[in-house]
């Protein structure tokens, strides 16, 4: 049983985090497999064709979740960096570090599926449309954040530097996005999901899409938990080695 904890910051202790993560990773894994397979199978085989886009609309069930994650993982890294800078919780820094690679892959898949989808509908794989450009920008900032971890050895100082890089990157990614949108609204349709029900896509696509998004988020969380666990154990090994060798 997971005991009820009074304070969310207790998760910030690496050992508390490890013990909880060990318990919930299998649960998350099972949930991920169930939701992803249900969502994707529903989306692939049990949805009708769109009257304009034909069967190519089935790409939405991976394009939207990956794009959603690509943006939100960067936002999560931004929050985690701020928490590390203010409250110095190691798990927060490690979470930001481990999320970056997953975010990069999600951005790449969103761009890939978008390009494949764009060819039959717009007649081109890539156009310098504002939304597409924003994703290219996001990709650059992911690469910048990953390269600081690649180039330098893990230490608290590099943690600070990378957190600042992430914060500065978020600000400029947002600014670039608005700069790109200033001139035109582009080919890409508006957001597929919003809280305002009027604008949403049809219900037939809506429910499997929601399940797919939940599935991808669960996939992200599972991977993130495992990566954080690995990273904490790496730190442990380093400390033990240092202690043994003096």
């Amino acid at each position, binding site marked *: 049983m997971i005991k009820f904890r009074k304070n969310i910051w207790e998760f910030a202790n690496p050992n508390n985090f490890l013990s909880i993560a060990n318990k919930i990773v299998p649960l998350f894994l099972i949930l991920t497999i169930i939701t992803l397979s249900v969502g994707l199978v529903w989306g692939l085989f049990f949805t009708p064709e769109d009257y304009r886009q034909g069967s190519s609309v089935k790409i939405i069930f991976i394009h939207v979740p990956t794009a959603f994650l690509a943006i939100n993982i960067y936002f999560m890294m931004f929050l985690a960096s701020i928490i590390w800078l203010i409250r110095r919780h190691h798990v927060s820094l490690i979470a930001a570090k481990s999320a970056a690679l997953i975010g990069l892959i999600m951005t790449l898949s969103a761009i890939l599926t978008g390009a494949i989808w764009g060819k039959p509908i717009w007649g081109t794989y890539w156009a310098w449309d504002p939304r597409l450009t924003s994703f290219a920008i996001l990709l650059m900032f992911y690469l910048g954040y990953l390269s600081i971890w690649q180039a330098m050895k893990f230490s608290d*100082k590099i943690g600070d530097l990378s957190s600042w890089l992430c914060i500065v990157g978020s600000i400029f990614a947002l600014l670039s996005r608005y700069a790109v949108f200033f001139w035109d609204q582009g080919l890409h349709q508006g957001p597929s999901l919003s809280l305002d029900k009027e604008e949403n896509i049809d219900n037939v696509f809506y429910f499997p899409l929601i399940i797919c998004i939940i599935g991808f988020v669960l996939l992200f969380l599972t991977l993130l938990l495992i990566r954080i666990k690995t990273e904490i154990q790496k730190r442990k090994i380093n400390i033990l080695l240092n202690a043994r060798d003096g």
Partner: protein
Amino acid sequence: MKLNFHLLKYELLFALANKGILLSTSFFIILILIVGIGFGQIGESSEKTLLAIIWIAISLSSLLSIKTMFQEDFDDGTLDLYVLSNTSIETIIFIKSIVHWITTNLPIIILIPLISFPLGITIYHSILICLVMLLSTPALSFISTIGAALTLGEKGGNLLISIFILPTFLPIIIFGMKISLLIANSTYDIMAHLILFALSLICIAITPFITSLIIKIHYT
């Protein structure tokens, strides 16, 4: 104030001693020529491409001597002296960025009418483009100080600085290119001008504080 002018004078002297002006202008000219010749071979040299090249070249050359900005002072201990002196680090960063702009971007901007005139942009329009650049490129120098601070004490940080900093130039490059293109076509968009200058001023106002926070990390 006297202290700030003293620092400005000596920072200029340091920058001149490092031959920054010569390097950045030659880099700029070579880049323009290489890309120009390349475009000439495939038969595509319009004013559009020229403007794009100019903006890209100016942003690349403002990263050229950025690595030495704090690294040299950090290695020889002058930065310690600044930290203990009667000014704030923010002021020092401000002065350094201004000096960096004067030594790398200003000479290039003065060169631009000479380059763009023979390639089909009227002298009036190229002077207008120069004015836009004068007002917006200081932000590039200011932003690149963040990269210099991030890679302080890191060997081979030049490549890292380009990776971190070039994407952050995007808002200014996007607006700058579009505005220059509009000017070359004799149309003006006052709103875009205002946003570009606002962006530039915001960067100038905020980056010294961010950079000083990052530099302080290296002191813990």
